[in-house]
């Protein structure tokens, strides 16, 4: 078997939880009051691997550790223990409020997003036409992003992420936006991306989206992997467990 795109072993991430809620100088000065510190195990020792070309959906109820897992893979958090191996460039899909600055134009934001995902400015310039065309933003690319609808922002963000030649794409709760036509285009693009050996890990509460896109599903429950395997089997078990409210 070839080298896995993602190899995670015994990964643990703990957070400090304070009950006073907010950190401030005041909190520090009243240190004797904040003794009630606890460690929260958001990710409690999980292991799995993702092969190139796989599209893995991650499901689980709120607080199960899905987003923390994605954050760990995006190297936003340092793991508490365990290890992970990432082979190739990782591209998290930047969504509204994170990667975009409202006062800058679409093009300026594309440059910023492209560079933060690891391209050079020159490489972004070379791909600019493709990125804009794929996003279907049209002439709006020269308008400030604050005039965009949330669907347009998502399309632009998705378009940049799939044009940076990443080998691992991390998607958090986003694919469901946009019209049917664009969703189909995204799924096509994702299929292409998989054929070229790209791996995708995506977190979603939308079971239909997971069924359509994922070839494998990981079900997380309080920081651990509850079930990992074939999409249909895992999703059925998940839905039957009653954790996922039906009709959501």
């Amino acid at each position, binding site marked *: 078997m070839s080298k896995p795109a993602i190899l995670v072993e015994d990964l643990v991430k703990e957070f400090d*939880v*304070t009950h006073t*809620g907010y950190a401030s100088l005041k909190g520090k000065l009243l240190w004797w009051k904040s003794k009630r510190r606890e460690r929260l195990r958001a990710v409690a020792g999980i292991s799995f691997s993702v092969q190139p070309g796989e599209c893995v959906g991650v499901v689980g109820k709120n607080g199960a550790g899905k987003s923390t897992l994605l954050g760990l893979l995006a190297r936003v958090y340092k793991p508490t*223990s365990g290890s*992970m191996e990432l082979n190739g460039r990782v591209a998290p899909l930047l969504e509204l409020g*994170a990667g975009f*600055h409202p006062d*800058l134009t679409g093009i300026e934001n594309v440059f910023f997003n492209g560079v*933060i995902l690891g391209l050079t*400015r020159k490489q972004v310039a070379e791909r600019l036409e493709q990125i804009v065309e794929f996003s279907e933003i049209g002439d709006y690319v020269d308008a400030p992003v604050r005039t965009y609808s949330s669907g347009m922002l998502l399309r632009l963000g998705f378009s940049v992420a799939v044009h940076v030649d990443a080998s691992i794409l991390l998607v958090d709760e986003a694919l469901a936006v946009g019209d049917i036509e664009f969703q189909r285009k995204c799924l096509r693009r994702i299929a292409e991306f998989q054929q070229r050996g790209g791996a995708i890990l995506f977190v979603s509460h939308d079971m239909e989206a997971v069924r359509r896109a994922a070839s494998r599903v990981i079900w997380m429950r309080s920081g651990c992997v509850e079930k990992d395997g074939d999409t249909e089997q895992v999703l059925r078990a998940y839905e039957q467990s009653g954790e996922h409210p039906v009709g959501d």
Partner: protein
Amino acid sequence: MVVRGSPSAVGGTTCAHVLSELKELYRYRELLWTFVVRELRIRYKNSVLGFFWSILNPLVTVLVMTVVFKYVLGVRVPNYSAYLLAAYLPFMFFQLALLDSAQSILSQLPLLKKIYFPREILPIGSVIANFLHFILAMGVFFVYLLFVWWLNPGENPFRATVVALPMLIVFQFCLTLGLALFISALNTFYEDVKYLVSVGLYLLFFLCPILYFVEQVYAAIHAPDMSQAWQGPLFTAYNLNPIAMLLIGYRKLMLDPQPITVTRTGDVIETHNLPLDWGMLGIAGAVSVLVLLFGYAYFNSVKWKFVERP
């Protein structure tokens, strides 16, 4: 790439570790530059005069100060505006860079929670963006000096020692960057810090020889009614403030010495004209570099904690 866990989430401070952090920063230089360009673009995006504001703002301020001090308070110093600008422009860079960078991490927290990049890029970007404004303003300042000289040809427009100015600018850059790294990290955890910083900067403005001359401080400390034993140490203490010492340096390297005359009781007239104290300037430089090293070390030791802020 393999990432291994560590229980503390705190970066090391060994030499090899610092070197690898610097290498990582160099790898992301393109992103740093993009951040700087973005910062510059955003600032004047919706204003008509745009970039000119960064020049216009200090010019108007200095004009008002000159009018007040020359015509209202009766300060008799030829070309007072030049002395004011020579210290005010570097101080503005110091002030704006620190205020901007204090917010730099906190305001980008949503982005930090999504994607990895060396976190120090944010405060460094804020400092560089303000630094570019400063260099531009200094360019305008030299044009102003040449203009004054052309109107009133006499002595040289500026002194030959101006060649040492880059050294001063490097020292100030180190000092500002070191403090920016420290403050931006601290402000992420304790939001009171930015208020402390703005109050501190306001006080510092009056503690530095900007509106007045260092000779006036010297004269005030060496007044006859001051205890002799305190005069030396007090003046040294004043000069130990690195930003004050650097501002003294800017003035004395660029502009002709400005003798200050004071009248004591009993009609004793004293004239003070202090040469630039290179020893104290050296200390200010060394302190600046130390501040940078300390700020960088502190930032690296907490940068992984930013996103875990409770």
